């Protein structure tokens, strides 16, 4: 194949003085102190083992934190599922947690309101509980239209769960069932 080696240059390099001159400025003199001190920013950090929140493959993740702040999320090499690898979504999960627009306060929109308002968390919880209770009472059916015993409410419903923990789904189903709510659904239906 057509040769592309820079023979002239190589040739010059062989020469005593010029050759040496060609390498001037390239050696140790060029390295900055910062570079000599370089190291990975997660060295010495606390690590937590986690699982990727996206698809259902269940890739292991390592979460590196520094005094309660997130520094880095990467694959867990010990996981036999992903062996340290991640897909683009998993690799972006630090940005998922530190995403622009991440909510930190309850947003409330009153009926017919035209904009969001802020709401205290405890107050929001109170209001939600009240509404769930009200809906239960208002729509309680002991028997349905054909007279069958049903002991339930169709007043409120739930959607979601495929992205939640099993513990959370368990308590949700437990509470809802105890309240007589049956319209409990999640993405498994889709």
């Amino acid at each position, binding site marked *: 194949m057509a040769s*592309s080696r820079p023979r002239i240059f190589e040739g010059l390099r062989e020469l005593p003085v010029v050759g040496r001159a060609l390498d001037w400025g390239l050696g140790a003199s060029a*390295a900055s102190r910062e570079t000599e001190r370089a190291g*990975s920013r997660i060295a010495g950090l606390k690590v937590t083992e986690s699982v990727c929140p996206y698809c259902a493959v269940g890739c292991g993740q390592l979460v590196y934190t520094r005094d309660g702040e997130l520094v880095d999320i990467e694959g867990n090499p010990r996981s036999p599922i*992903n062996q340290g690898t991640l897909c683009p979504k998993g690799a972006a999960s630090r940005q998922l947690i530190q995403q622009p627009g991440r909510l930190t306060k309850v947003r409330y929109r009153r009926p017919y309101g035209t904009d969001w308002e802020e709401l205290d968390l405890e107050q929001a919880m109170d209001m939600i509980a009240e509404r769930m209770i009200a809906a239960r009472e208002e729509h309680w059916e002991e028997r349905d239209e054909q007279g069958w015993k049903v002991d339930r409410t169709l007043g409120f419903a739930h959607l979601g769960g495929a992205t939640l923990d099993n513990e959370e789904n368990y308590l949700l189903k437990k509470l809802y069932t105890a309240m007589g709510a049956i319209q409990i659904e999640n993405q498994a239906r889709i």
Partner: protein
Amino acid sequence: MSAAPTEVAVRRPGARRMGFFTDTTVCIGCKACEVACKQWNDLPADGSVFRRRSSYDHTGALSASTWRHVRFVEQLEPAPLPDLPAYGGGDLDLVAAAERFGGVPQMDRWLFMSDVCKHCTNAGCLDACPTGALIRTEFETVIVQPDVCNGCGYCVPSCPFGVIDRDPYDGRAAKCTLCYDRLQDGLEPACAKSCPTDSIQFGPYDELVEVAKGRVLALHERGVTDAYLYGAGDEPGEQLAGELGAFFLLTAPPERFGLPAQAESPAQENGPLATAAGLAAAALGLAAAVASFARAHRAARSGGPLRAPASRAPLGAHPRAVRSRAPLRALRGRR
């Protein structure tokens, strides 16, 4: 071959040359490397535009904030179109073809290739850098020292692979560091670690090359005769920029992936000849100038055709010159 030790700026005992072997035959085009790189190096997204005829590639090319970039090549089977070029893909206006031949060619292959800085043995950017911001590390990789670079931009056109670029906002040049910081602590680079199918393999250079050669042979046995190494294993006379620290296994001509068929550090390839030519020309020019002056003045003195009206009087006393002293004095006066 490896770089001249005189180039190595950081020395650590026992450091070996490290590199990437990117095997496109197991790449699934998931772009995990692109994101993992941005995550670890904390680089921003650089704009979201839908690019036509770009298959699934909407980030375009390597840039100062994109250090891994996945190229998509849709390659079509010639059938059923009569005069479809041997390699289809981006070359063909499918709509026109459908209108002309009323047929739709089959997908032959969908090729994915994760491009990255090649960490050349003869690195154009390194040779060009006037400040020493670009250095050769103990792993024989080439990195930009962000605390040194002053954004002269000379490395940008000096890279035969179009890798390094100057950030329009920040003003400094930036490119893949082969995760120099991670390497210090024995971690593999972010992209290689994240790659789900190990299309990007990281390791000691010589070991990688052995793996890669074995892979080429295996593929040939399977009938994938197009398989070849881009940037490693070549004869000394035929190497790309004296061998690439990050080399590739490709199954189509390099031009399909935006790679040159051959490359060399421009400074090494052209520098000496150009300098010689320049100096020679300059010397010649200087000589010519001197000569023509000498000639003119000799002629003037010897009352040749260029004879000045008055006799041997020195220039300063020249009558017309006397008239025109004013401006000269004015010049002095201004000082």
